[in-house]
């Protein structure tokens, strides 16, 4: 027999009321914690992938779309640019390095990125098995892709046009897996990398095929994004890529170069840092709204503790007087009631944290299926420690206000009245 036992008995004695208070607390905690976790993870992923890239050059369109498609591989590319025009940029003394990218095809929902060795080096990729691609149609698979599709060295497959599984297959040319990468925790895990020449090769045939079939104009127009339909054997000049990742020697000077490109060419430049900040600002509204909702839920949970204690104290007034007559001090009974609020807060917090983990796991499964982006689920944040203190505070406050009436009970009168 001790205070803890009495307060847990009291909570168990009113299971529905206690359940409601705990549920509300858990929901509020779960939402806030989920937002914290997801926000943290998204930010981490976004900043890790953007590291070392000062500018992206691509076709005109939405700069955010250009960043999302070229760096994060999660949106459709803006269109193609001429390799020739792009190459002219690389000759500028301001540019330290460039990585060309060519996207547009996929296999089983995983993107095939045409690039070169530099793209792998950029992410400090290491090989789990095999080696880097040497010639066209050789391909290196990211860790996650290889695992999920069960790739082995030497496997061959035909890519599909577009990024969904329903895209039509480029059956004529098959890719051959020559290397599998170790996990880099970057976008590299989710894609397959092949030399630029492979993408060109696949679409040369493709263009001929399409023409032979007399495809309709719309279809042809779409294909235009990838290759010039008329040039069956494209020269170096007419070759196209999707975008280029640029690193400057001096980022400040680079900004000036970016401005002149935007003004004077058919190309567009986008700065990852700016676009990502813009994206976070857009998401920020939603996150903030959700945080307010969660806060309101937690406060309602506090109110629920308050109301249930307030009501039960009216019923339990005699009980309190009885315990006082049996030698309990008023402070002891006050602590007893505080403990009830505290227990609800603690249980609610624990359930909330578990719920947020389950929620993040579900979200991550869903996001992974749709975007091939994954979240790491089990980390505990230091913000959650503050959340814990906040939950305790609300539980204590909600219990303390009605419990103060303990100090006003007239023992003799209460015992005599009933």
């Amino acid at each position, binding site marked *: 027999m001790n205070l803890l036992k*009495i307060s847990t008995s009291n909570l168990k004695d009113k299971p529905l009321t206690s359940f409601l208070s705990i549920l509300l607390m858990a929901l509020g905690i779960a939402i806030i914690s989920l937002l914290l976790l997801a926000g943290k993870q998204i930010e981490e992923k976004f900043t890790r992938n953007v590291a070392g890239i000062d500018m992206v050059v691509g076709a005109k369109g939405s700069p955010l779309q250009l960043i999302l498609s070229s760096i994060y591989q999660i949106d459709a590319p803006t269109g193609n640019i001429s390799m020739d025009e792009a190459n002219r940029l690389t000759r500028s003394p301001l540019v330290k390095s460039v990585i060309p990218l060519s996207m547009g095809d996929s296999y089983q929902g995983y993107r095939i990125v045409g690039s070169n060795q530099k793209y792998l080096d950029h992410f400090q990729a290491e090989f789990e098995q095999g080696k880097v691609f040497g010639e066209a149609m050789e391909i290196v698979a990211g860790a996650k892709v290889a695992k999920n599709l069960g790739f082995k060295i030497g496997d061959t497959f035909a890519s599909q046009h577009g990024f969904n599984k329903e895209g039509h297959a480029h059956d004529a040319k098959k890719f051959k897996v020559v290397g599998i990468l170790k996990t880099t925790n970057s976008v590299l895990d989710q894609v397959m990398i092949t030399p630029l020449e492979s993408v060109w090769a696949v679409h040369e045939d493709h263009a001929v095929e399409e023409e032979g079939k007399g495809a309709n104009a719309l279809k042809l127009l779409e294909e235009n994004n990838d290759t010039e339909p008329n040039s069956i054997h494209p020269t170096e000049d007419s070759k196209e890529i999707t975008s280029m990742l640029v690193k400057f020697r001096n980022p400040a000077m680079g900004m000036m170069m970016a401005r002149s490109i935007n003004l004077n060419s058919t190309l567009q430049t986008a700065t990852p840092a700016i676009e990502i900040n813009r994206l976070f600002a857009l998401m920020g509204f939603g996150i903030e709204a959700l945080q307010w909702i969660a806060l309101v839920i937690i406060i309602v949970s506090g109110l629920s503790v308050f109301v249930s204690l307030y009501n039960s104290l009216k019923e339990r007034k005699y009980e309190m007087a009885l315990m006082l007559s049996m030698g309990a001090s008023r402070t002891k009974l006050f602590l007893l009631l505080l403990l009830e609020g505290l227990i609800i807060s603690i249980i609610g917090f624990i359930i909330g944290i578990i719920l947020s983990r389950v929620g993040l796991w579900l979200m991550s499964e869903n996001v992974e299926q749709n975007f091939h982006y994954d979240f790491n689920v089990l980390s505990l944040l230091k913000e959650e420690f503050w959340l814990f203190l906040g939950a305790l505070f609300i539980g204590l406050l909600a219990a303390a206000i009605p419990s103060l009436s303990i100090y006003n009970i007239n023992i003799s009168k209460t015992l005599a009245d*009933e």
Partner: protein
Amino acid sequence: MIATQNLTFAYASDKQFHFPNFSCADRETMLILGKSGNGKTTFLHLMALLLKPTGGKIQINNQEISQFSVSQAADFRAKNVGIIYQKPHFVHSLSVMDNLLLTNYLAGKNQAKKTAQHLAESLGFAEHLSKKTTQLSQGEQQRVSIARALMNNPSVILADEPTSSLDDDNCIKVIELLQKQIQEIGASLVVVTHDQRLKDVFSSCCML
């Protein structure tokens, strides 16, 4: 033992109570008879130190207790006085056993499960120890509240109308049980009641 001298109390200046002097030695019983409204419960609460008298003296075990502070009174009451209330009230969420042990806990004593078990057997509710108090009948609840008053081996047992809700058979049984228990632990028993049936059972009686 317990004794009172010239005890007075007033809820308001126009309603002054004067209580009779009496003295009750260990293992003895004292019946205080009075109609309702005569201040029976007030007298009992004064003896239990739940109210502070405006004048007069109360001695328990030859110790003058009427001028104790609130916390002194609470401590003294918890250790030396067992109270049986008119209606049996308990901590609703706790089992019968836990309600008995609560008496030890709140008085700061060791929790005597064996004593509780023993009392439950001699008062005839041993099979109900793990039940909630609300599952017991009125008579059973009254016996549990007697056991509760005995848990700390008090020097004085104060009973407020312990028999008013019981039929004749149970009434006699409860009084016999009480008298037997105080013989065992060597306490004084003071019963405050309007129940005329008890007049013949008690040797000493005083009227309010």
